[in-house]
């Protein structure tokens, strides 16, 4: 079982309290009418599928109910960090610094 740190509850809790919610930092265009079909397709359907650190959303469903962001290594399933929704994307180099 994964142990996930909820940035709102400030506790590290079992995975069963959480649900995965897809890739993080997918931003809807400020002016939707200006978007081409390709740009809409990209926004709606195209997601990265990295082998390694992945920026993704999680929700503390059986807890505070908040969505938050996490960086998880898709190879090891290790969570590099979690941070509140709306917070800036942490630099990967700072997260990996202690491991290289």
């Amino acid at each position, binding site marked *: 079982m994964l142990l996930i740190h909820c940035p709102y509850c400030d506790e590290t809790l079992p995975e069963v309290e959480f649900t995965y919610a897809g890739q993080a930092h997918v931003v809807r265009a400020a002016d939707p009418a200006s978007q081409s079909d390709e740009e809409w397709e990209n926004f709606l359907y195209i997601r990265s599928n990295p082998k390694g650190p992945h920026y993704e959303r999680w929700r503390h469903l059986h807890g*505070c109910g908040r969505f938050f962001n996490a960086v998880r290594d898709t190879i090891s399933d290790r969570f590099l960090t979690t941070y509140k929704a709306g917070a800036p994307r942490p630099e990967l180099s700072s997260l990996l610094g202690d491991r290289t």
Partner: protein
Amino acid sequence: MNKLVSSFTAAPLPQGAVARVSLAAPVARLVLRARGDLAALNAALGVTLPSVVGHRAGAGEIEVLCLGPDEWMLHLPPGQVGAVSASCAALMGSHPHSLVDVSGREVTLEIDGPRAAELLTLGCARDVEAIPVGQGRRTAFDNVTVILWRDGPAAFRLDVWNSFAPHVAGLLETGCRELAAEAA
């Protein structure tokens, strides 16, 4: 106000020597959602809303648990719901919020006995012992969302939605039998 209706009939609940489960008396339950400055709501409710998730506060017969950064569960005597709702409704213009009566939604199971915390590990993946006495948490019990209140080292309350209560009670009964068999 919703009726205090429950589809859950407290059929024989387990009464083991090391862990007991009983159905708590009906209580009115309100869910409050609010953001920003809470001073006006604190004054209307007569209790200071805790700001840390999992912390509790109480004043008179009102009991509040912080469920999320902007969400609270209030337990209070059914007779006080009208007054509390009215005083909060008066603030709606100056301080928008949501106060919903969910009294009929859930029942409370009281769990106590020397091995009550161990009984809860049957369905609760979280470290139950690590919840400080006098606090509470919303968590999952065998995939059912529950609110767990810790009233003492070996005294818990479990708020369960009506439709899930037979399942949760059945699971607790199995656990009580196991613990009783170990003790025998």
